[in-house]
């Protein structure tokens, strides 16, 4: 059950696009960890920089995407961390290819 939910959560986050990059937050490597306890979901994520003002927007988009796709999940907590700092090596192969790596 939890595995299924986990897959659904990851694919849900794949629909949340970083408007500046035009690529979803999973491919960009911004999602560090998803923890599921009963029906509560905790997402640990980062921004490319501590000076990036897009945090609130992405957190809202994530909460909205999850509540729309998975109405059974009652609580979504998104926590922003800068430890470790984001690094370009965290991007997926697809994202890197898109930017010409």
């Amino acid at each position, binding site marked *: 059950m939890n595995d299924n939910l986990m897959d659904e959560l990851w694919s849900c986050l794949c629909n949340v*696009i970083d*408007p*500046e*990059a*035009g690529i979803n937050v999973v491919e*960009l490597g911004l999602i560090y960890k998803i923890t599921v306890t009963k029906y509560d979901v905790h997402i640990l994520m980062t921004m*490319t*920089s*501590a*000076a*990036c*003002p*897009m*945090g*609130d*927007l992405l957190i*809202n988009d994530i909460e909205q995407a999850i509540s729309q796709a998975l109405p059974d999940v009652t609580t979504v907590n998104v926590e922003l961390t*800068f430890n470790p*700092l984001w690094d*370009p090596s965290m*991007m997926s192969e697809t*994202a890197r290819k*898109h*930017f*010409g*790596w």
Partner: protein
Amino acid sequence: MAMIAMIVGIFGGLMRLGISTPTVFSSQVGNHGAFMLSAFFGTVICLERAVALNKPWVYLAPLLSGLGGLAMILQSPIEWPSALFTCSGIILCIASFKIYLQQRVLYTLTLFIGALCWMSGNTLWLLTEYHLLAIPYGIGFLVLTIAGERLELTRFLPPKPKANKIFAFLLSVTLIGIVTSSMRTDAGSVFMGAGLTGLALWLIQFDIARTTIRKSGLTRFVATCLLLGYGWLFIGGLLFMNKALEPGALFRDAALHAILLGFVMSMVIGHAPIIFPAVMRVKIPYSSAFYLPLVTLHVSICLRITGGFLDNVPLRVIGAEGNAIAILLFVAVILYQVKSGYGKA
């Protein structure tokens, strides 16, 4: 507060061009530059930093500069606005320096130097009671903050160590120009112009906008705003190289508005659907209607600057009116989108 500043500033600017506006704005005619640069753009950029850092005390920076704008509207004693703006600069410097300590790299350094420009310009204004000297510093603050953020985003692309060195060089040239301008406007203008022109070319060459413009929706819109803005930064830079910073210079109006409207305002329009929701706690769904103010803005800047080149006052006035219409359209589209966002929720 930034919104009030913008509207008062726009009317002050229009009035200066001899366009009839309600007399309540007449107090701002002489202040238009100080008002738009510090009270509006300064507050918007401080607000953007505060949102990013998400610490209550950093919000003092936009609050103080907003109050500075208010003090200008209320025609308070002459040193009040500049004192408030200086305090805003000090807060922003501390906040930016903290980010730099967290991550000691070129883009955080650029943001910190941008904040230093903001503080220094406002301090000069406070000490001399003369806003003219603060203008290059204000431009430095806005351009360096934006350029620093764009530099950060180039990390999505494969690293180009040479590009970073060129950026650092251009940053230094711009800074030399800004500082020199306080003593010798003509020489300062040339250096600052050269730095800004170079930064525009750098951004056109290395920014992710050339990749992201191939996407769709909001991503493409942001990229369009960026690339158009870089074009104006380039033109403004060239004009400053021609000593446009000197008071009374023929291309002064063109240079200032190419950079502040063509580049900075374009950036504000592009990022409104991203930043404003965080600031105002409302949703602003993106719609292609945002192209309307963008196109109006750029067409009217073209008219205004062509008018400047040909020394054709009526054309300049039409352009300036178009600029004001573009900004009001932008506000209208935001309000409409906020409303439709609520409709869906």
